């Protein structure tokens, strides 16, 4: 392994002091003066209804109200991958909480009061709240215009049904593969909906200047994508839209794409010259952004006595909600990778994006993989037990390795899955029984493997601008978003490595689409890799300009020059030691005549994965290279079950992830500690619950329980595997989402190990486990 100066060394976050002192600005912290207007939306109380009329008269009489806006003013559709949304409901509403109208007022109080006085008359329609009902013959059709919606070429909707997209994958002959198996296991796994529950609620402020320029300040992972969708939906030139995103108080996918921000942008169009603010309450945050989609997964896997998996059939029915403009791509991602990280000869995947009258589903850390891995890795464990093979050994025998053919025909990237499995198992003393601390407690151990690829369009680009300052410090402007993962620090380290300028002398700015370079979105755990490559290219260009300046001013051969300790040195002239700060802005004096060479060093870099393609046969999924690479890993867990209460106490979690090259090890350890706990929340107690009318029953942090500091495992052991990603910056690939993917099946597997009960529905609450235990007894 190459020894680097900055890359690979744990580096304190460059945004640490700002955040620890309260100086870091978030969207709601920005001041806009007395001219600021406040908006509140009028939300649908029905899950499915036709809008018969909207009476705004009473609301307009409330003192302080400036304007009431309805869908009449904005009739265009929008959406990231499938244009199935309107800014405000048009002729019908499709979930409880959907925006029907909005009030703009001088104060927040007036806006809220008036919003309650907008009278909307509805004709209630039949509704569907789960995939079975939505797929049943004669089910009410949620989107009769599905055929006409704009969409990306890799989506395959079924007009006339509630199937917005059906991703198929066929490899080999599954029936033959199952016949060839000594053991075939079939079961169904259920995963409910979950909330991202970032601590910062969504917020947006938008202003259309009198001169016609739209500025939007938003808490978003996707400034450029927002600008693009605003331009298309509102009919403005990209040139005239500016999206500014200060720090974001947690994303997890919930602030990706465009949700409530487009309401703010649209409202600004109606009150030219005034900034308008929309700030989601916690309840709105739960209901009207994205939720993690529910899943019913039917799995059939066959394996031979020697431990070889022969065939896998995985049918995934996704409860994708009322609008799937983003969520359908979650379904797509799962539909090409729901084999898990295994080499399997015969594969059949069917991933169906199903409209329901629940809030829109969308991206959530893991992008479909967290959801399907619960069933898949549960099933893998059960097969191993059924065959009498150790679950660790069973996974090793089928683990994908670099060069293997993937289910859709492309080649697997280099990866360290075997090492990850071994190290995760070792870290929890796999195979060694641990004594129970009391007679009513059972100890169990679990193991699970995972993989995940970034799900991106084939032309998702990243770019970076870099400039040197008079004192030799550096500013970098990129449009990836610091959502907590430590991206700004990683970018600084990458540039530091090339330029020999320490990360704490590099400032990496949060996005402003007017001045920062392009980034598709901060999603898919791809920015360390994609934007890292752009920053690397910019840093290389800056270095080349610096060395060229020295060559032109002093005559040194460029090949002999290099950067170290913020100086230009030479391999042939030991006396040359030119501090960067002396010439990166003001240039170098040519000794012969007193003229200056060089000038302010500025550079740019740009990156696109030019080798990807989503062109594949819709019936088989064969062809193309839809994924740039996979990040793999494995985790082990030790827990205790109190058999008298069903309560689970997690003792140890060891998680190994293959980062390619760890740019900032402490940041990866942070992703592991955080992802593990987020995963534990989903498997142990979190769950969005709805009444029979589609109304969310627990839209507060009182009733939707997040893990607290008292709920953490005794020990989380982070393990970083490093098998170089050849096209990554210094060999890096992303790890952010991956750390929560294996956690749910890990707990299910350890529970079975502890008490011999297999739970196939999440979450595994104490109540559910206790009932299962007592049922077993009976």
């Amino acid at each position, binding site marked *: 392994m190459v020894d680097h100066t900055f890359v690979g060394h744990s580096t304190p976050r460059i945004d640490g002091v700002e*955040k620890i002192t309260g100086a870091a600005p978030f969207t709601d912290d920005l001041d806009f003066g007395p001219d600021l207007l406040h908006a509140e939306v009028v939300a649908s109380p029905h899950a499915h209804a036709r809008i018969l009329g909207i009476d705004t008269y009473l609301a307009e009489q409330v003192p302080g109200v400036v304007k009431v806006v309805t869908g009449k003013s904005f009739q265009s559709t929008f959406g990231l991958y499938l244009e199935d949304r309107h800014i405000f409901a048009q002729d019908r509403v499709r979930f409880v909480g959907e925006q029907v109208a909005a009030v703009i007022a001088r104060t927040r109080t007036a806006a809220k009061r008036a919003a309650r006085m907008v009278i909307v008359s509805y004709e209630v329609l039949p509704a569907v709240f789960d995939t079975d009902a939505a797929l049943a013959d004669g089910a009410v059709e949620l989107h009769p215009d599905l055929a006409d919606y704009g969409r990306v070429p890799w989506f395959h909707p079924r007009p006339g049904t509630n199937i917005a997209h059906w991703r198929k994958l066929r490899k080999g002959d599954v029936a033959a593969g199952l016949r060839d198996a000594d053991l075939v296991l079939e079961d169904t796994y259920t995963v409910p909906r979950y909330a991202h529950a970032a601590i910062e609620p969504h917020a947006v402020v938008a202003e259309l200047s009198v001169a016609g320029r739209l500025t939007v300040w938003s808490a978003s992972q996707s400034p450029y994508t927002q600008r693009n969708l605003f331009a298309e939906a509102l009919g403005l030139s990209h040139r005239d839209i500016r999206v500014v995103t200060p720090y974001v108080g947690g994303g997890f996918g919930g602030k990706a794409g465009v949700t409530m921000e487009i309401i703010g942008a649209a409202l600004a169009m109606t009150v030219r010259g005034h900034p308008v603010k929309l700030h989601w309450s916690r309840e709105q945050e739960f209901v009207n952004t994205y939720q993690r989609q529910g899943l019913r997964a039917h799995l059939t896997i066959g394996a031979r006595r020697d431990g070889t998996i022969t065939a896998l059939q995985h049918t995934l029915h996704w409860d994708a909600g009322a609008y799937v403009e983003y969520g359908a791509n979650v379904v797509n991602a799962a539909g090409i990778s729901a084999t898990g990280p295994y080499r399997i000869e015969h594969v059949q995947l069917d991933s169906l994006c199903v409209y329901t009258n629940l809030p829109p589903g969308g991206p959530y850390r893991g992008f479909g993989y967290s959801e399907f891995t619960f069933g898949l890795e549960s099933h893998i464990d059960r097969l191993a037990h059924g065959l009498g093979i150790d679950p660790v050994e069973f996974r090793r025998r089928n683990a994908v390795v670099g060069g293997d053919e993937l289910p859709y025909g492309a080649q697997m990237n280099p990866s360290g899955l075997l090492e990850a499995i071994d190290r995760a198992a070792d870290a929890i003393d796999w195979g060694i029984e641990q004594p129970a601390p009391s007679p009513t407690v059972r100890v169990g151990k679990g193991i699970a493997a995972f993989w995940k690829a970034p799900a991106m369009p084939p032309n998702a680009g990243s770019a970076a601008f870099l400039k040197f300052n008079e004192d030799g410090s550096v500013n970098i402007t990129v449009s990836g978003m610091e959502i907590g993962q430590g991206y700004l620090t990683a970018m600084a380290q990458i540039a530091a490595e090339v330029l020999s300028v320490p990360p704490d002398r590099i400032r990496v700015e949060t996005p402003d689409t007017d001045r920062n370079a392009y980034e598709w979105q901060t999603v898919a755990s791809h920015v360390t890799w994609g934007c890292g490559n752009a920053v690397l290219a910019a840093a290389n260009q800056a270095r080349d300009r610096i060395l060229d300046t020295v060559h032109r001013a002093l005559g040194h051969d460029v090949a002999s020059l290099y950067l170290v300790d913020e100086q230009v040195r030479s391999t042939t002239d030991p006396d040359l030691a030119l501090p960067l700060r002396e010439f990166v802005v003001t240039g170098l004096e040519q000794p012969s005549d007193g003229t200056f060479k060089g000038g302010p060093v500025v550079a740019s870099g740009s990156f696109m994965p030019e080798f990807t393609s989503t062109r594949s046969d819709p019936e088989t999924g064969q062809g193309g290279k839809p994924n740039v690479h996979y990040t793999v890993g494995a985790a082990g867990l030790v827990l205790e079950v109190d058999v008298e209460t069903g309560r689970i106490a997690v003792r140890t979690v060891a998680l190994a992830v293959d980062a390619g090259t760890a740019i900032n090890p402490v940041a990866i350890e942070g992703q592991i500690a955080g992802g593990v706990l987020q995963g534990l929340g989903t498997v142990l107690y979190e769950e969005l619950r709805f009444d029979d009318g589609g109304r969310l029953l627990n839209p*507060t942090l009182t009733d939707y329980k997040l893990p607290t500091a*008292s709920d953490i495992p005794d020990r989380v052991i982070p393990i970083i595997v490093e098998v170089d990603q050849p096209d990554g910056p210094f060999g890096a690939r992303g790890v952010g989402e991956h750390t929560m993917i294996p956690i749910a099946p890990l707990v299910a597997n350890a529970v079975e190990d502890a008490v011999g009960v297999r739970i196939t529905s999440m979450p595994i609450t104490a109540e559910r486990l206790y009932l299962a235990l007592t049922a077993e007894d009976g």
Partner: protein
Amino acid sequence: MGHAVALKVNGESWSLEVEPAELLLEVLRSRVGIKSPKPGCERGDCGSCTVLLDGRSVRSCLVLAVEVDGHELTTVEGLGIDGLTELQQRMVELSSFQCGYCAPGIVLTATELLAVNPRPERHEVQAAMSGNLCRCTGYAPIIDAVLTAAATAAATTAPEV
């Protein structure tokens, strides 16, 4: 009808006229201009709006502005006037936070803990922190920073032998 309220915020005196139903959180953010207490749930669940009221942590979304007449408030802006505290330094070194939205509230809760219990056990730190939600970090690097700060403070104040 407004109520006259006199209070101290980070050592500075303020006289304000507030409405009976105005929350301390709103008044601090929009009238005093102190932005570190953050809205997260507006019903006392998340702890991101924590401030110190006469040295004790309170959720400013559950306090009416009229209630703080004659009292002293400290926010994280007031802690760092003379540079980072020992606790804040450890938190920076250990990269304790990710998105940072919960950080101001957690810094204040931890500061209060160390004031009343300078050498807390790990479980005491966990209990003290359990009213401040963090969705990013898994809490471990926060707890470690509190324990490290306590140990450092104890080492520097311990009598020489």
